[in-house]
């Protein structure tokens, strides 16, 4: 089993190889002249034979010999020559092993090795978590009409907050919101709804995606940030060159919510210009739960357009312009006070990749982006005379955000040293307000501002370093520094915060934070690796934590006020991980144990019966584990099991942290082939009795087990039919991270048909 980082970089080219050859010849001359005593090495790059993209984390070794190396994030490797050994082996999960005869290459050092994928799955959405490509990518990983959340449903360590039958907030190791970075193709997006009804997953469709990359905790790769929970990056699909005209159509139906989905895409790949344009539409009615009831007003309707243009003027330069437009109509949130009336998002970015700008520098990638989100919600369809909170009051609310940024990243390597440097600048502008209209027309409307023209500007630089030290050791270190400024401009918001915090002089602080990490891994045998990672860092409070005003939290029934005076929050983490097996063994998998001690933990502090204010509230500790095991039963049959657990405790409040997922996992058996694939999956969760009973309205949830069955049939070369029964036994269940205990979906029969043109 290999260690892998997932960095997608364009392939190298002949010119670069010539430079490498020149350099190697030069060093050869120097060596023979006796100026240095470096060992002889073979180096090269490993690429995917289908896509031409580099394959990071491929194992490069001499068969029969234990030592070897692993390709870096850009696919490059360097290995010392072994006298008398003529064969070099390269292997990686998902590809056929490759063996190279190097007997007459001598000190030839510009190898380009192409690995052939085991299946034609170039359309599949690949999930990677941490530095592992998850063994489970799901039988519907190439379905473009499934909601994005469905692709993330069974990843250990990743959970999702459910507020409706739509758009779930990722939770990594028990942390979410301002503690987890959610990116769309490396671009930050700021949700506009103060009630959390529009996480970034609301604006992305499976059709837009190539892969979902997840970092758990303060990892350096692949998504370094100061977020203590980690990060989720929805990497967008790129159009391919040299493919001519292609297209596909997919239509699907889910019985449990009478949801119809349609997706169509059209693409053209020329020699150096390619584009892809696609659209997705979905419309759903009320969701039926396991006890047969329909959750009234839980339907939704939305459309999504995605266009991407790829331009490669020379072999070294690539430009990728992409745009996502997402337009949602009414989305029902029956467990919350309001429904979304309309939500629009425009996400645009230009990415430039410069391959091999110089010797040792493998790539420089820059990403310039801007996105805008607008969100309208109201409770006009509700009976406000009967509810407890805001009784007799309609409260239409509006929110908008503008996020813009520039990221630039450099990847360099020399021998067994890999360096990644990144600089990032971004700004967030946010505004939100609400109107309170009493049912009695004689009572005057009330108006307040929830986010008063808040602006945050951040700059960060980070460096991550890895070194294959020999004897199977891999050492790593990373450091990051981030500075953030804050501004509050709207007049009544400024007056409000001055009135709420009369002792606070500066409402617009500037903060600087850092995070550092160290890791060490050892390849103990070729089937067993273990490692440890420690990290420590601070994060900046989010704009909601600082400047949100009068924001209702259904979890505890309080209205929250922000606190401009918040101090930065600290997280110190340690992780022990073990990887076993490799792509040739029967059993493979990984396990991680982790601890996270947080200080100055930002949470809501009770102010009176109605209000809480964000405050730094001492120490909170979380700990847990994830484990994934895959069994290669036969060539076609695979079994896998995963489980994860989080324990969270707030020391200062002397009670468990709220919204912590219980012990849960997945068990599945899969048969994959080119024509028919089937999967039987169990999703299970234990009951959660550790609740924040004193300071919130959290309730216990019972454990559950769900059984899903899927089948995917390639009817013809161009026609794939997917069918499935989810929650086949129609179990009534509630996930613990479901706000106000919205029950999960009952039995769902789904069908989708995909035509490739």
């Amino acid at each position: 089993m290999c260690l892998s980082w997932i960095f997608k970089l364009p392939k190298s080219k002949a010119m670069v190889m010539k430079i490498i050859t020149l350099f190697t010849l030069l060093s050869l001359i120097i060596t023979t002249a006796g100026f240095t005593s470096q060992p002889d090495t073979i180096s090269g790059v490993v690429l995917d034979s289908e896509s031409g993209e580099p394959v990071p984390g491929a194992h490069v070794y001499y068969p029969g010999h234990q030592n070897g190396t692993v390709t870096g994030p850009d696919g490059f490797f360097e290995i010392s020559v072994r006298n008398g050994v003529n064969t070099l082996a390269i292997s990686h999960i998902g590809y056929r092993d490759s063996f190279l005869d190097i007997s007459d290459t001598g000190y030839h050092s510009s190898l380009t090795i192409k690995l052939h994928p085991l299946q034609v799955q170039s359309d599949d959405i690949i999930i990677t978590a941490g530095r592992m490509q998850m063994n489970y990518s799901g039988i519907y990983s190439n379905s473009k009409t499934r909601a994005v959340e469905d692709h993330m449903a069974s990843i250990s360590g990743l959970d999702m907050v459910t507020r409706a039958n739509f758009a779930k907030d990722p939770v990594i190791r028990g942390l979410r919101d301002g503690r987890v970075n959610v990116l769309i193709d490396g671009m930050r997006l700021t949700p506009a709804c103060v009630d959390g009804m529009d996480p970034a997953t609301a604006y992305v469709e499976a059709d837009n995606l190539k892969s979902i990359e997840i970092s758990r905790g303060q990892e350096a790769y692949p998504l370094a940030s100061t977020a203590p929970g980690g990060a989720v990056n929805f990497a967008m699909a790129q159009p391919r060159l040299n493919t001519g005209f292609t297209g596909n159509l997919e239509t699907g139906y889910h019985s449990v919510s009478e949801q119809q989905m349609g997706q169509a895409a059209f693409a053209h790949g020329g020699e150096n210009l390619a584009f892809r344009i696609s659209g997705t539409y979905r419309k759903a009615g009320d969701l039926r739960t396991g006890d047969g009831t329909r959750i009234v007003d839980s339907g939704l309707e939305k459309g999504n357009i995605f266009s991407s243009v790829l331009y490669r003027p020379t072999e070294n330069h690539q430009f990728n312009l992409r745009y996502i437009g997402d337009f949602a109509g009414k989305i029902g949130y029956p467990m919350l006070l309001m429904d979304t009336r309309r939500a629009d998002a425009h996400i645009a970015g230009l990415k430039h990749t410069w391959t091999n700008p110089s010797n040792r520098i493998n790539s420089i990638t820059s990403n310039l982006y801007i996105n805008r989100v607008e969100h309208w919600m109201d409770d006009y369809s509700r009976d406000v005379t009967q509810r407890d909170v805001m009784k007799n009051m309609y409260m239409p609310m509006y929110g908008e955000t503008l996020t813009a940024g520039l990221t630039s990243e450099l990847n360099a390597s020399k021998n067994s040293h890999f360096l990644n440097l990144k600089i990032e600048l971004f700004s967030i502008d946010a505004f939100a307000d609400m109107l309170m209209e009493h049912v009695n027309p004689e009572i005057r409307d009330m108006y307040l501002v929830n986010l008063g023209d808040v602006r945050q500007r951040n700059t960060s630089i980070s460096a991550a370093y890895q070194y294959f030290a020999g004897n199977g050791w891999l050492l790593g270190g990373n450091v990051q520094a981030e500075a953030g400024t804050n501004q509050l401009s709207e007049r009544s918001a400024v007056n409000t915060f001055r009135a709420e915090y009369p002792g606070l002089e500066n409402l617009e602080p500037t903060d600087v934070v850092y995070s550092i990490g160290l890791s060490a891994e050892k390849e103990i045998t070729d089937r067993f690796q273990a490692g440890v990672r420690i990290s420590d860092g601070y994060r900046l409070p989010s704009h909601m934590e600082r400047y949100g005003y009068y924001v209702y939290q259904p979890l505890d029934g309080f209205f929250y006020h922000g606190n401009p005076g918040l101090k930065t929050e600290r997280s110190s983490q340690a992780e022990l991980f073990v990887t076993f097996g490799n792509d040739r063994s029967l059993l493979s998998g990984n396990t991680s144990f982790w601890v996270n001690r947080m200080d100055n933990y930002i949470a809501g502090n009770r102010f009176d019966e109605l209000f809480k204010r964000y405050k730094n509230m001492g120490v909170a500790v979380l700990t847990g584990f994830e484990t994934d095991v895959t069994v290669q039963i036969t060539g076609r049959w695979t079994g896998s099991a995963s489980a994860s657990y989080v324990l969270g405790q707030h020391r200062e409040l002397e009670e468990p942290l709220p919204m912590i997922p219980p012990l849960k996992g997945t068990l599945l058996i899969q048969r994959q082939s080119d024509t028919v694939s089937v999967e039987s999956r169990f999703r299970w969760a234990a009951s959660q009795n550790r609740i924040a009973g004193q300071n919130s309205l959290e309730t216990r949830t019972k454990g559950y087990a769900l059984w899903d069955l899927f089948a995917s049939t390639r009817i013809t070369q161009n026609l794939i039919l997917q069918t499935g029964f989810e929650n086949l036994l129609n179990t009534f269940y509630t996930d613990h991270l479901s706000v106000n205990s919205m029950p999960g979906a009952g039995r769902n029969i789904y069908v989708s048909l995909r035509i490739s043109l």
Partner: protein
Amino acid sequence: MFNKKFRRLSGLLIAILFAATACSDFNNNNSDLISEPDLLKLGEFTDNGITVEAYAEAPLAVGYNKIYLEVHEAGVRVDQPSFDFTPMMHMENHSHASPYDIPDGSRDDVHDLYHTWAIFTMPSGMMGRWELQFSVEGQPGIVADGIISIDVEDSNRVKTFMTDDEQRYVLTWIEPAEPEVGMNDLAVALHKRESMISFPPVTDAVFEFEPWMPSMDHGSSNNVSPAHEGNGFYHGQVNFNMTGDWELRFDIVLNGEDLGHHVFELDF
């Protein structure tokens, strides 16, 4: 010696001198000439050669009102007059005054006029009519007496109440005049009705204050209950965290005696 030429010359000289002194007198008089203030004129009267004009910043209403005065003789301001003043309401069966202050002869910074204030406890109308009664002494011995009839609009800024032992009080809500979201200065005044015409300030009351939004069922935080700052005026702070319907709730205690719970309503 007093020949024609000399007489003409001296005449000219005298004329020049006279003109010079007259001019200087004229200049002095120019600086005492009044100009039309940029305020709402309430009325005027003239008595014994002295004219008294009354102005206000806005139409008078129930509550605390600043009144500006100009006193002049034929356009020339009278310096340092002394005043006597009473606002009186004439009702069908009787007349009564209300809390007021007497102008002290100083001129205010903003409008450069003599100034005072009155708290009108009722509106003009069917119940009666209001008058401002003045007695102004310019130069010693020269007194102008007169009245200016005024119109007072209704408002909810005054509460008159009677305690169990039949003591009557006037509670006036003065600030904020124009409420805004955020922290506002809060000012109230408390006067006691000693007689029909005597309303002395109450200087040792203790206020407990809470703003409240009845439709939202909550108040706000960081409010400061009004504390006495002189002459029956109490100052504090009120925090409005949103626009809408608000109640200003006051509990008053005077020397251990409970003066009751009083609520002013506002919406903005």
